[in-house]
C-alpha cells in the first residue's frame, strides 16, 4: 500500500499532458512552416487567423471544463469573461491607434495640440459614432497597455469573484445556477448594447487587428505571432489546469461535483473551492478573449449573448467533460466543422427530390448530434481515448459487496 501512495512526478502521473503539449508544438511549428510569413505559404493568412482563434476557443473550453467537468457548475455565462477580456484589450488597441492617427492629423495644424485637445480628438473619433464626444470614465486607463493587461485579468476575475460569492453563499446550484449565469451574461450584453455604456453600443470596438506601434509589420506576420501567443497560452493554461486537478485540490473539486453536501459535511470549505476554480477559470477565459479579438479584429455585444456560452458548453460536452484534452478536441473539432459547414464550402447532399444545403441544415445536424452525444456518449469524443487506454466504466450490475468491502459491486469485483 505504501508504494502506491508515493508521489510520482506530476508529468509521469499525467502522461496526457506531454502528449497534448507535443501535439500542440507540432501543430504550431507545422502551421508556421506552411504560413505565408515564415514558410511556404500553403496556408493563407486568413486560415492562420482561424487556427489561432480556434486555439483561443480551445483555451476557453479548457476553462469551461474546469468549471463544468471538474467542479460540476454548468456556467452558461462563460463567454461574458471571454468578451470582457476582448473589450479590455480592445480599449487599448483602439485608443492607442486612434491616438496616433489623431496626433498625426493634428500635427498638420500650425499650432501643436495640447494634451486636452488630443484627448478630445481621440474621444471624438472613437465615440462620434454613438453621438458623444467625451471619453467615458471606463476609458481612463485606455492609454496604458500594462494597466489594461492587468485589467484583463482583474475585471473578469473580480466579476467572477463577486458573482460567485453571491451565488455560492446562498447555495444556488444546479439548474438555478446555470440560469443565473445566463442572466449575468445577458445583463452584461444588454448593458453593453446601450450607446451610453461607454463601449460604443452595438458598434462594438473595431480595427483591433491593427496593433499600435507595429505598423510596419504585415498581417501575415502578425497572424503567426498571435498563433504562437495563443498556443503558448493554451499550453501554459493546460499545464496549470492539469496540475490543479491532479492533486488533492483536484480530488476535493471532483468530490464537490459528485456530492457537494457530503464534502461540506467532511469539513471542507466548499464555497472557497468553488470560488477559486470559478475565478481562475474566468481569468483564463479572459486571457483567451484578449488573444482572440485582436485576431478577429472586431468585438460587439452580440458576442456576450447567452447562446455563445451555450455553444461553449456544447463543445466541451461533445469533446468530453472531465477530460481537459476532451475540451480542446471538442472546441477544435466542432468550431472548425461549424465554420466549414456554415461557410458554404461543404458539398451539398443530393437526395431524390431535395437538396440538403449544409448552410441550412448544419444547425439541425449539430443540434441533433448533440442530443445523440448526450444520450449515447456522455463522455464525448474523449471517451474513445478512454477506451483505447483501457479505461472502461465499471459494469454496475449485481449486489453491493457490503459496507466493509468498498464501493465495488459483485460483478465488478469478479471482473
Amino acid at each position, binding site marked *: 500500500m505504501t508504494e502506491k501512495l508515493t508521489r510520482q512526478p506530476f508529468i509521469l502521473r499525467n502522461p496526457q499532458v506531454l502528449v497534448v503539449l507535443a501535439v500542440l508544438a507540432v501543430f504550431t511549428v507545422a502551421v508556421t512552416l506552411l504560413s505565408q510569413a515564415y514558410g511556404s505559404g500553403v496556408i493563407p493568412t486568413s486560415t492562420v487567423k482561424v487556427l489561432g482563434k480556434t486555439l483561443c476557443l480551445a483555451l476557453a473550453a479548457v476553462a469551461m471544463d474546469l468549471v463544468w467537468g471538474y467542479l460540476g457548475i454548468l456556467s452558461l455565462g462563460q463567454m461574458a469573461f471571454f468578451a470582457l477580456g476582448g473589450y479590455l484589450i480592445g480599449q487599448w488597441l483602439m485608443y492607442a491607434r486612434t491616438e496616433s492617427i489623431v496626433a498625426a492629423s493634428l500635427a498638420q495644424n500650425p499650432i501643436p495640440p495640447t494634451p486636452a485637445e488630443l484627448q478630445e480628438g481621440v474621444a471624438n473619433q472613437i465615440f462620434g459614432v454613438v453621438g458623444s464626444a467625451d471619453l467615458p470614465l471606463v476609458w481612463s486607463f485606455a492609454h496604458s497597455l500594462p494597466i489594461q493587461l492587468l485589467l484583463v485579468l482583474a475585471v473578469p476575475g473580480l466579476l467572477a469573484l463577486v458573482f460567485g460569492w453571491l451565488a455560492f453563499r446562498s447555495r444556488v446550484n444546479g*439548474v438555478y445556477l446555470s440560469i443565473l449565469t445566463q442572466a449575468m451574461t445577458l445583463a452584461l450584453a444588454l448593458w453593453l448594447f446601450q450607446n451610453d455604456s461607454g463601449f460604443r453600443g452595438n458598434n462594438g470596438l473595431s480595427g483591433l487587428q491593427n496593433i499600435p506601434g507595429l505598423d510596419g509589420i504585415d498581417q501575415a506576420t502578425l497572424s503567426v505571432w498571435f498563433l504562437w501567443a495563443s498556443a503558448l497560452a493554451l499550453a501554459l493554461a493546460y499545464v496549470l489546469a492539469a496540475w490543479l486537478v491532479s492533486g488533492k485540490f483536484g480530488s476535493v473539486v471532483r468530490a464537490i461535483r459528485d456530492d457537494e453536501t457530503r464534502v461540506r459535511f467532511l469539513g471542507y470549505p466548499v464555497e472557497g473551492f468553488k470560488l477559486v476554480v470559478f475565478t481562475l477559470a474566468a481569468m483564463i477565459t479572459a486571457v483567451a478573449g484578449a488573444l482572440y479579438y485582436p485576431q478577429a479584429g472586431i468585438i460587439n455585444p452580440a458576442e456576450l449573448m447567452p447562446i455563445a456560452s451555450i455553444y461553449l458548453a456544447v463543445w466541451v460536452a461533445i469533446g468530453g467533460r472531465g477530460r481537459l484534452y476532451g475540451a480542446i478536441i471538442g472546441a477544435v473539432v466542432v468550431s472548425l466543422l461549424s465554420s466549414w459547414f456554415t461557410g458554404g464550402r461543404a458539398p451539398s447532399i443530393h437526395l431524390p427530390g431535395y437538396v440538403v444545403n449544409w448552410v441550412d441544415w448544419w444547425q439541425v445536424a449539430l443540434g441533433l448530434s448533440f442530443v445523440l452525444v448526450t444520450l449515447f456518449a456522455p463522455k464525448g469524443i474523449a471517451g474513445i481515448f478512454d477506451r483505447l487506454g483501457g479505461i472502461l466504466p465499471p459494469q454496475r450490475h449485481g449486489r453491493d459487496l457490503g459496507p466493509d468491502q468498498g464501493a465495488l459491486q459483485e460483478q465488478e469485483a469478479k471482473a
Partner: protein
Amino acid sequence: MIRPLIALALTLLLAMPASANPALEAVIADNLDQIEKPSRRTVEPLVAQIAATGPEGLALLQAWSGRALGVTDDGRLLIVDGDTATDAVTGAAVTDAEPKMLRPNSGVRGVIESALVAGEISSPDPARRAAALASIARDGTAEHLAALRAAPAEPDPILARQRQRVTNLLAIRFDAEPAARVAAIERMAGDVGLDFRAALNPLLATSRIAAPAEPDANIARELSIGADDFPRDAAIALLTSQGVLQPRLTPADQRNALAANVTGGTVGGIPVADLFDPAARDRAYEALEASGAVPPAATEAEADAALESHRFFEVYAEPNPDVTDAARAAQTRAQVRLAAMTGIDLGLDALSLASIYFLAAIGLAVTFGVMRVINMAHGEFIMMGAYTGYVVQTLIANRTLSLVVALPLAFAVTFGAGVVLYRLVIRHLAHRPLETLLATFGVSIALQQLAKNIFGTQARPLTAPAWLEGAVTINDVISISSIRVAIFVLALLFLGLFLFIMKRTRLGLEVRAVTQNPGMAASMGINPDRIAMMTFGLGSGIAGIAGVAIGLFAQVTSELGQQYIVQSFMTVVVGGVGNIWGTLAGAALIGGLSKVIEFLNPANTLAAQTFMILFIIIFIQFRPRGIIPQRGRAAEA
C-alpha cells in the same frame, strides 16, 4: 374689435328670411378683384363682410371654399352645382353663362371655413353644431370665442358641455380680461385633457434675464448661481447674450487666433513648438492682446464682477401674475391627477406583460416542478404554436374562425411535440438535470433552424381579427390595446383551467403526488413516467397557446421563442417551482418591475432589462428558492 361684432351680426342675420340681397351685391361689386384673386393675408375682412350679409353670403362662402363658385365675364358670381348654376346674389337659376371657376388656395379656404364655422354653431342641426365645435376645438381663434359666447344656448346637454369646455379653452388663450381668463382656468382645474395642458403651457412659458435690480415683469422666480439648473456657465452665457459681458475665449477660438498670428515661428514671442502647453498659449494670447493684434477677451475677474452686479430671474411671457398663478395651480393639479392616471395605465401595462410571462412560463414551471429539468426547447414550442397559428390563418380566411381553430390546434401540436421530446430524450436523462438542459438546447437549435428552413427568415404576420384591433381607451392617458386585454383574459382562463386540473382531477392529484415525493407516489401505484410525460405534454401545449397569443402582437419569426425564454426562466426562478401561485407571483413581479423600470428610464429599454436582471440576481440572494418555495422532502431533491 370689429370682427367679433360682425360675427355677432352674422348669427343674428341667420334667422332672417332670404331674398335678393343688396348688401351682398354691394360687397361683391366693391371687391370683385379680391374675390377672383384672394390672398390669405388680406381676405379676412372681406369674408367677414360677406358673411355678415346673410344666408346668401354664407351660401356664397360655402361655394367659394368648396371651389364651386364661378365668375362670369360681366362680373356676376355664380354658384355652380354640376350642370346647373345659380346667381349668388339673387338665387335665380342661370343657364346661359360660361363662368370661370374660382380656385382659392388652401390658406384662403381656411379663412373662409373658419368664418363659416362660427355660423354653424347656431345651426338647428345638432350634427352640424357638433362638427362646428370639433372644428373650433381643433383650430380656434379669438373670433370663435366671441361667436361661442354670443351663440344661443345649446339644447343638447352633451354638446352644451363640450361647448362650455371649448369656450373655456378659448377664453384661457384669447380673452382680453385677465379676470375672465383666471375664471376660465379655475373652471377647468382638475381636467387632464391634452388640450387643456397645451393651453396652459404658453401661459407658463418663461425666459431668463439678467438685470442689476428686480425688473418690472411677472417674475416666476429668482435664480441663484450654482443651483443644479443654473450653473455658473449658464449665468455667464446669459450675461454674454445680453451684451453685458464680452464673450469668454473658448480654447478653439484661442487656438485659431494664435494660428492666425504666427510670425517667424513664434506667436507673441513664444515659440510655436511650446504651444502644446495651455499656460504657454495663455501667455502668448496675452502678449497678442497687449499688442492689439487680437480682441480682448473677458477675464475671470470681469466675469466675476458682472455676476456680482447682476441678479438673475426667470420671467413669464404672460404679464399678469394672477393668470400665471392660476395656471400654475391648475397645472400642478393636472399633473397630480395625471400622475395617478399614468400609474393606473402603467398597472394595466404591467398586468398584460405579466399575463404573457405567465402563459410563457407556466409550462416551464410545471415540468421543472415534476421532473427537475429545465426544457431549453420551451421557447421553440412557443414558436411552434405561433407558426401553427400562421399556417391555420393561411388556410382559413376568416380571422375569428382561424383563431378559434388555431388555439386548440397549437395546443395539440405542441402537446405532441412535448410528448415526443419526453419519450425520445428526457426520460433517458432522468436525474441528470444539467445534461437534460443541454440536450434540450440541442433540440432547440435544431428546431429553430428547421423553422428557418421551412418558413424562411422573414417575419410572418399573424393578424388578429378585427374585433381585437384597436384599444380600450378610457381617457387621454389610460388606454390598453384589445389584444392585451384578450391575453389577460386568456391567462386568467388558463389559471382557472390549471387550478381545476390540479385540484379537481385524478391527473392533477397524481401530478401533485409525484411532485411532492416521486418514490412514495410510485409505491402508491402511480406511474411517475406516465405522469411526467403528461405534465411535459401539458406544459408544452400551454407554450403553444402562448405562442398564438404572442404571435398576435409580435412578428412570428424563428427567434420568437428566444425573446421570451430568458424572461420565462426568470419568472420560474423568481416565483419558485412546483406551485402555480409561485409562477403567478413571479410573472407579476417581473412584468411589474420591467414596466416600472421602463417608466423610470423610458429612453433606455436596454438599461431597464439590465437593471431587472441585476435585481433578480440580488433577489435570489434572499430567496434562493423563489417567492413561494417548495417545502418538504421534494425541496431537497
